[in-house]
């Protein structure tokens, strides 16, 4: 009965139990909900780290629900699994680490950020549910279970976007837009699951991957899944909801929403690499993902330069950075078929793309937290109204500089490490793509210099006289993020070698993924 081989479910079930208890605790006393939620998220962060160490040393972990033992995947008389199971491999736990860290820091940040007057228990309950649904999306090995957690993620994020909507109109409009987009996405995912169930009468990802034949139906299911999950991840053709949703949500929630849309990005990679892998013609689908990435990069940054609202500007940058990840992994997918090209630059491209997911979550989270700090003190998000804040908010200025330098890809910070990997490998695949990526990176730097100048520099404005530094819990959250950014920037190969590389290999080797389930322990 040692709890260690139950860690995959404990990471998820403890915050879920806490989320159910919070309305009761909220009735007893208001303040306790925040601290209770932060403690539970801290506990699940520790459990995620334990699970990560175990997976990187031993190998992918399986957890079957309701069977005689957690590892009994196949019932005695059948050749494929019938129960729901968690299949956590290196890629899943890589995303799990991002989710755990981002939501723990978001909870600490919102201890001081959210006003204590009302609706506190709803806020923390929704924050826990959003975290649980992201964990579920990243750990599950069952298609329908992924659909249920996708639905919880969209419900929780819509409710959190509308959190400030009781007396303001815009958050509810942003929430409505996001709700319509994510319910269409979830329904089309359900339609694709119906197609897979109709064809193979099985719902487990590894089991479908072993019998998939890339027939006419599978092409349609692949088309639906990739386009719909790209819409959820904020890629260009359907990115209209991203600036509204990110700018109207409270700052810590925007940080977690960035990680939530990256969970949909992870879902695209899981569908494309673990479900189809060689069976789909990799060049065509690879190029489609590359085009998604290029469009997102370019349109994201060009729209960002003309923005006046600081959070909308950062939201457009989030779209353009998602383009980098799609580009990196798209190149990896395009050359998946011929092993020589894959060894030469395909794997480094994917390493760059996936490492960029972690880096992006860190520095985009830091930037949104600094924007939240500015909003917390000055009450406005409009760059024209702000000015000369560097005089009063020293720490926030330092954190903003670190974040802006990291997103622009300046050397000592983590953005540079992953972008360099992408530039190198994409250049070998097709020089033009790499040049576009560099131009976009320069435009990113330009727009952040503009933000830094208009928000922080300039004379002391009269209306900001009484502005002082943000409370300690917000500074602590930002400090942890900037420490990670600097640490990843200085020792990138340490992270790439023993965290990102196993994740990439677990995506590429579909045989290992299916054999852990069907091979049966």
């Amino acid at each position, binding site marked *: 009965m040692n709890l260690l081989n139950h860690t995959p479910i404990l990471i998820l079930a403890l915050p879920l139990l806490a989320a159910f208890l919070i309305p009761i605790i909220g009735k007893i006393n208001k303040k306790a909900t925040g601290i209770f939620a932060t403690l539970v998220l801290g506990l699940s962060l520790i459990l995620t780290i334990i699970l990560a160490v175990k997976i990187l040393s031993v190998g992918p972990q399986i957890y079957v629900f309701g069977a005689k033992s957690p590892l009994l995947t196949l019932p005695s008389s059948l050749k494929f699994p019938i129960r729901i199971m968690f299949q956590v491999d290196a890629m899943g736990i890589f995303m799990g680490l991002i989710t755990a860290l981002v939501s723990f820091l978001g909870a600490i940040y919102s201890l001081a950020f959210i006003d204590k007057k009302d609706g506190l228990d709803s806020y923390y309950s929704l924050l826990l549910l959003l975290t649980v649904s992201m964990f579920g999306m990243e750990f599950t090995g069952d298609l329908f279970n992924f659909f249920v957690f996708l639905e919880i993620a969209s419900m929780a994020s819509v409710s959190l976007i509308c959190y400030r909507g009781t007396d303001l*109109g815009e958050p509810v409009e942003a929430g409505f837009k996001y709700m319509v987009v994510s*319910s269409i996405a979830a329904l089309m995912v*359900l339609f694709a699951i*119906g197609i897979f169930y109709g064809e193979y009468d099985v719902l487990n990802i590894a089991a479908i991957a072993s019998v998939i034949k890339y027939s006419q139906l599978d092409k349609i299911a692949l088309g639906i899944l990739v386009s719909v999950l790209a819409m959820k991840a904020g890629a260009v053709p359907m990115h209209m909801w991203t600036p*509204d949703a990110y*700018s*109207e949500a409270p700052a810590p929630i925007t940080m977690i929403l960035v990680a939530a849309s990256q969970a949909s990005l992870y879902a695209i990679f899981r569908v494309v690499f673990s479900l189809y892998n060689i069976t789909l013609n990799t060049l065509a689908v690879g190029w489609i993902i590359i085009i998604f990435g290029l469009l997102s990069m370019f349109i994201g940054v060009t729209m960002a330069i003309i923005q006046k609202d600081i959070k909308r500007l950062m939201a457009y940058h989030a779209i353009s950075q998602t383009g980098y990840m799609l580009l990196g992994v798209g190149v990896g997918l395009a050359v998946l078929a011929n092993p020589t090209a894959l060894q030469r630059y395909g794997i480094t491209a994917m390493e760059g793309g996936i490492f960029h997911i972690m880096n992006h979550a860190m520095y985009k989270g830091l930037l949104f937290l600094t924007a939240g700090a500015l909003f917390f003190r000055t009450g406005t998000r409009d760059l024209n109204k702000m000015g000369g804040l560097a005089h009063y908010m020293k720490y926030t200025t330092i954190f903003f500089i670190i974040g802006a330098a990291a997103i622009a890809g300046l050397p000592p910070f983590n953005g540079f490490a992953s972008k360099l990997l992408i530039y190198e490998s994409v250049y070998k695949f097709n020089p033009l793509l790499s040049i576009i990526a560099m131009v976009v990176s320069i435009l990113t730097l330009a727009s952040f210099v503009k933000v830094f100048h208009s928000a922080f520099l300039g004379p002391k404005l009269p209306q900001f006289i009484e502005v002082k530094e943000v409370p300690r819990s917000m500074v602590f959250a930002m400090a942890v993020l900037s420490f990670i950014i600097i640490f990843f920037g200085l020792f990138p190969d340490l992270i790439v070698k023993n965290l990102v590389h196993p994740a990439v290999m677990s995506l590429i080797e579909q045989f290992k993924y299916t054999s852990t389930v069907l091979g049966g322990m």
Partner: protein
Amino acid sequence: MIGNFPYITVIIYIGCGIYILMFQKNLIKLAIGINLIENGINLFLITLGFKKGAVAPIYTQAPSGQSMVLPTPQALTLTSIVIGVATTALILSMAMMIYKHYGSIEVNEVRRLRG
């Protein structure tokens, strides 16, 4: 081809929902559109699980000697119906709140977020 006629009617049903979502301008109609697609896909799942001349998979006083319909789509549809209820409840509450703040529920007038 004619054997798959139930699937085609379900697809037409989903098509109406998508048509509403794309071309209607009223928020409540959008909610109805999403509900149509939701029910359409539930029907699609159920028609997947049908077996000719079979009985519901319940053993209490079941007519003896008959095969049973596939149970898994019914379990999936149960979950999907409750998700439909939750989605519709949330969308309608947001439509109410938008009406409270903007005074109208036409998509063209509810457009303060620009650019």
